[in-house]
């Protein structure tokens, strides 16, 4: 008989994030497929009652929480104390949590402390005849594997999009507040705050409908033998603003900063898409001046509709990696696109 525990941190405004509500959806579905199983919820953060109330009607048999100023910030030492306590007290056999950065940092350590096993970034869970099977990507989105484990607790973090987000309501949840006290040693790390990598633009927007990817071509010599980095900046920022797009980059373009070549001021390593970058989720993606090599395109796995503008008809996008490839000068095309937008 499986005891399922859904764990999440609360956001700074006391709510649960979209990915947390999606994973709760997966936990509810899984509980429905495992006869005799129970579902409980464990939350941690500054103050968790509001979040618990928002999912009071989700069907969980019990709610527990760890709260207080010590748990406001994303910090390993305090988070692991909270998460281990929530898992330990619940005696859960299956633990599901969102694969956000805060949870991803702490969950593996919690698995060690709780004598469990962990699998991260699960994209789907299924259960048949009482056996739970998890699915995730391997080799950076190149292949998927389905597997199961005998060990309990089996602790899993789940990627965005694993299920529909559970709608929130305004019920009243009875929360069993667990007391977790931190020693001075557990406060060796102080969180100082957050910082935007570039001073002049917030370019990464996970909720945007479209991802605009800029490649190294934008800062390469053009037909006139000159580099037009300033013009490139204008086109890209203009498009981001008008289309409310999120900005991605190829590795070559972001690496140029450390290699001393022409750079786009608002671009940082955080924008990089691909093998050693991000794999964001957007409905549409437009690649410009980017060759579409395999290590880059791996990061496009979760972009549904893909178009590319490239001067080279034989670039990677032409090899079945985009739906449409426009063989054209991206400077000219983006000037027009921005005019029309």
């Amino acid at each position, binding site marked *: 008989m499986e005891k399922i525990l859904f764990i999440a941190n609360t956001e700074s405004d006391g709510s649960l994030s979209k990915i947390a509500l999606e994973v709760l959806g997966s936990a509810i579905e899984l509980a429905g497929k495992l006869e005799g199983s129970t579902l409980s919820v464990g939350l941690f953060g500054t103050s968790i009652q509001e979040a618990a109330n928002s999912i009071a009607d989700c069907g969980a048999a019990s709610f527990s929480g760890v709260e207080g100023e010590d748990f406001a910030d994303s910090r390993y030492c305090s988070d692991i104390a909270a998460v281990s306590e929530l898992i330990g007290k619940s005696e859960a056999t299956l633990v599901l949590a969102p694969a956000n*950065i805060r949870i991803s940092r702490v969950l593996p350590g919690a*698995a060690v402390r709780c004598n469990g096993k962990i699998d*991260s*970034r699960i994209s789907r869970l299924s259960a048949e005849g009482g056996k739970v099977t998890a699915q995730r990507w391997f*080799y950076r989105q190149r292949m998927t594997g389905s597997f199961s484990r005998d060990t309990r607790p089996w602790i899993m973090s789940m990627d965005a999009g694993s299920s529909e987000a559970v709608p929130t309501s305004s019920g009243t949840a009875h929360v069993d507040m667990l007391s977790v006290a931190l020693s001075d040693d557990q406060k060796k790390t102080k969180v*100082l705050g957050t910082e935007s990598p570039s001073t002049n633009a917030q370019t*990464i927007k996970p909720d945007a409908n479209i991802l605009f990817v800029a490649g190294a071509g934008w800062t390469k010599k053009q037909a006139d033998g000159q580099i037009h980095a300033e013009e490139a900046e204008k086109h890209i920022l203009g498009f981001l603003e008008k289309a409310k797009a999120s900005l991605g980059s190829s590795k070559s373009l972001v690496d140029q900063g450390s290699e001393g070549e022409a750079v786009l001021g608002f671009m940082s390593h955080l924008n990089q898409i691909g093998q050693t970058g991000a794999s964001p989720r957007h409905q549409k993606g437009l690649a410009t001046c980017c060759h579409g090599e395999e290590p880059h395109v791996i990061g496009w796995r979760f972009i549904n509709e893909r178009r590319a*503008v490239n001067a080279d008809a034989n670039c990677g996008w032409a090899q079945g990696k985009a*739906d449409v490839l426009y063989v054209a000068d991206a400077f000219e095309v983006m000037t027009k696109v921005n005019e029309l937008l």
Partner: protein
Amino acid sequence: MAGNNFFSYISSFTKNGELEMSNGYDIVVCGSLVPDPLQTLEPIMGPQGPGLKNEMMLPAVLDPWAGHALYEADHLAKKTEGSRVFLVSIGPKAKLQQLMMAIGQKASFELIVKDGPASGFTDAADTARVLAEAIESIPGLDKSKLLVFGGCASASRDAGVTMQMVGEKLGITDHFLAVDALEISDSGSLKIKERAESGQYLLSECSAPPALIAWATGNLPEPPNNPQIGMANMRKIMPALQQAGPAGIESAGLSFAEVTIPQQKRDTKIEKDMPVDDIAREIVEWIKG
């Protein structure tokens, strides 16, 4: 105080008997090899579970994020006198030897090898256990100076869990994930920038080592090959490879049902002669549609 620890302890006394405070760190980088990302990978199911077709033949590279960790370790060690850098690798010995020919020229380190699989399908918990044991066995390891580095995720398993498990097993309780910058303040505290949600950085300050730092790309370019470093490294790397014992990784209790490559090839429409105005109009319609 047993064995080698004793020697590192007495060597930290100066001639007049005072305890000399060394600023150096013991930086241990965990990293192994992955298939070159330009290769096509095909999964196969074997009696021991899944693997890659012709896995031993595939050209390999140092796992990219672990590579950044190694370059950052080298950089920090050069800035901080008295530091030592170790690279702990679990992988097939023969392939690691090939890899070391290239990596050994880029940064100074001592190599510790466990002969075993570097597959994306092994259990991260086993990998972490073996890495932690290997780190514990480093002669004269001083945990008060210990910085454990690694990549924030591998390009094989891509789980982002191994380093934290290594840290826990070593009793390190300050962990940082997806780090792009580490700065040591005058007081010796570690100032760290971690990647956070929505393209932000989380800034933290950890008063002192030990700490575990799982790197993202950092800010350093890949160092050029330096044959002199290569020569110096190789004197220690070759014996380390020869002495490498088996890792003993079994992935018990983990069973794979299947591994597949999803269909991903699209039927690309290539517009070669479309006027720019028409391209722009079509793109805008598509965006708005």
